[in-house]
């Protein structure tokens, strides 16, 4: 990149951040509520950019962790635990799930398309199971899981004892987006991040240098799950509702446009915010023997 353009980069980023927050004072509430969901999905998209773009893991399961985060937040918040504990659980449950699923996947040396199918089926299994737990027998504490009806009346996030209104929730989401982005940028530049990129480029070579690819992939997978879970909790608080359709891949389909930020091409106009929030992950290189012209 030429020096002139490079010089503009920090300025452009500063403007973007100002715009992200400034919007809260410039638009009407209805538009702000819509923008809020884009910001939340951008956080989900960042988790995908990490798992797909940086680590090269074809996981169709990010929506699982999104859903687990949403349900964890809803159940704990409705059971009277404060926002802090509810949000904490929204991070922990997906992390636990990802640790389990990741161990199964990466230590079983499952990769590329086959990994995609297993994560897809996992999301579908979970979707079907949650769909069927309607009826008042299925309770966690005081909260009925609701099956296909979902859980209504999810309380909003409360900070320092005060419940956040729509505008404040937007600002919180925006702040978390910036934080997650900065954190991921740092992660990508760190030693760990460089090794993960190397594993994505050529797993065998990384292992021949002595790096345990399975452990590194598991680590990234878990971090991605935590971020997706956070987005899920925000989504539940935003809508005041959580239902089984946050789980399967059609939810992913909405942010799949956002996931195009894995590649340097922007798409979906509604996800312009997601593009702004792109981690700048390098152009994805599947590294799998795929397609015509590749002997397999």
């Amino acid at each position: 990149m030429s020096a002139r353009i490079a010089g503009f980069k920090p300025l452009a980023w500063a403007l973007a951040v100002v715009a992200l927050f400034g919007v809260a004072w410039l638009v009407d509430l209805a538009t702000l509520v819509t923008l809020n969901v884009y910001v939340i999905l951008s956080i989900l998209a960042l988790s995908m950019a990490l798992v797909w773009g940086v680590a090269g893991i074809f996981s169709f399961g990010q929506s699982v962790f999104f859903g687990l985060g949403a349900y964890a937040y809803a159940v704990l918040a409705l059971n009277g635990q404060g926002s802090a504990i509810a949000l904490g659980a929204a991070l922990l449950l997906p992390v636990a799930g990802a640790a389990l699923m990741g161990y199964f996947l990466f230590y079983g040396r499952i990769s590329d398309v086959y990994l995609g199918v297993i994560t897809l089926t996992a999301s579908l299994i979970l979707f079907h199971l949650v769909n069927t737990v309607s009826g008042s027998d299925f309770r966690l504490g005081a909260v009925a899981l609701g099956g296909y009806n979902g859980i209504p009346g999810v309380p909003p996030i409360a900070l320092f004892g005060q419940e956040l209104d729509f505008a404040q929730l937007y600002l919180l989401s925006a702040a978390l987006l910036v934080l997650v982005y900065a954190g991921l940028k740092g992660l990508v530049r760190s030693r760990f991040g460089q090794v993960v990129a190397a594993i994505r480029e050529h797993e065998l070579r990384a292992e021949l240098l002595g790096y345990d690819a399975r452990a590194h992939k598991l680590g990234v997978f878990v971090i991605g799950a935590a971020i997706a879970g956070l987005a899920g909790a925000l989504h539940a608080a935003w809508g005041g509702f959580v239902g089984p359709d946050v789980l399967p891949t059609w939810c992913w389909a909405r942010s799949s446009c956002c996931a195009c930020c894995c590649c340097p091409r922007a798409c979906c106009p509604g996800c312009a915010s997601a593009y702004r929030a792109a981690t700048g992950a390098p152009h994805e290189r599947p590294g799998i023997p795929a397609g015509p012209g590749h002997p397999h």
Partner: protein
Amino acid sequence: MDYAVLSFHLVYAIALLVLTSLGLAIVFGMMRVVNFAHGEFLMIGGYTLVLSVQAGLNIWLAMFVVAPAVVGLVGYALERLIIRHLYGRMLDTILATWGVSLALIGLATWAFGFQQRGVVAPLGSFTLGGYRDSWYSVLIIAVATALVLGTWWVLRHTRTGLLARGTMQNAPMAEALGMNTSRVYAWTFAAGAAISGLAGAVMAPLTGAVPTIGTAYVTRAFITVITGGANAITGTVVASSLFGTLSELVTRWATPVAGHVALLALAVVLLRLMPSGITGRFFRRSL
């Protein structure tokens, strides 16, 4: 329980899976392209049948000639316009075909509306002892079998099939021998699409034609094909047999949802044991 009836239902369940997966298997197995618009190929085939019949065309002509031709054309266009630019980039292909799928569903909804259109299943029913079923189920089994055998025969015993297999194995070599590989890709994709169109048309009298009908089948087809592994025909048949049998047995014993979950769980187990699909481990030299 009457075992003959049970076997018939098992074979039927397997045939359904084979029918809805074969087109996707050919495209994935031969070209390593994951086509998420596969469900919409089924949908277009179904609509072609329903609309042709409503316009007065003979149902068998519509089913076995018109539907495959129409969807084959759509597939050819899709390959030329989009897929050929994305070979080797699996992530991009998935996203692009997903986008096409959404677009096609939107188009169908706009053109035909939400309500289901139907065609009566022809052929009537038969009785076997105390049991009654429709001849149409037999037709479905017959069509699935014919498609599998036909595809196998073409790949194994015809020059076209040999050229296609050669191109897929080693395209630069094929080109060096003078083959127009880009044409082979286009025709292979079109063939996979045509088979999916035929499958969609065959199933339309049972399911009706609705813009979202494809989504009901695409995940099951996707899972069957990938679990089957790289060898299109053997993989699909073996995976369909395993999934169809388990899913049907569990559905009889419990509920359809349980049957679906059992299929998914079996897929996870199989892929854990055979990380490259079934034909990555067994039947490796087959087609």
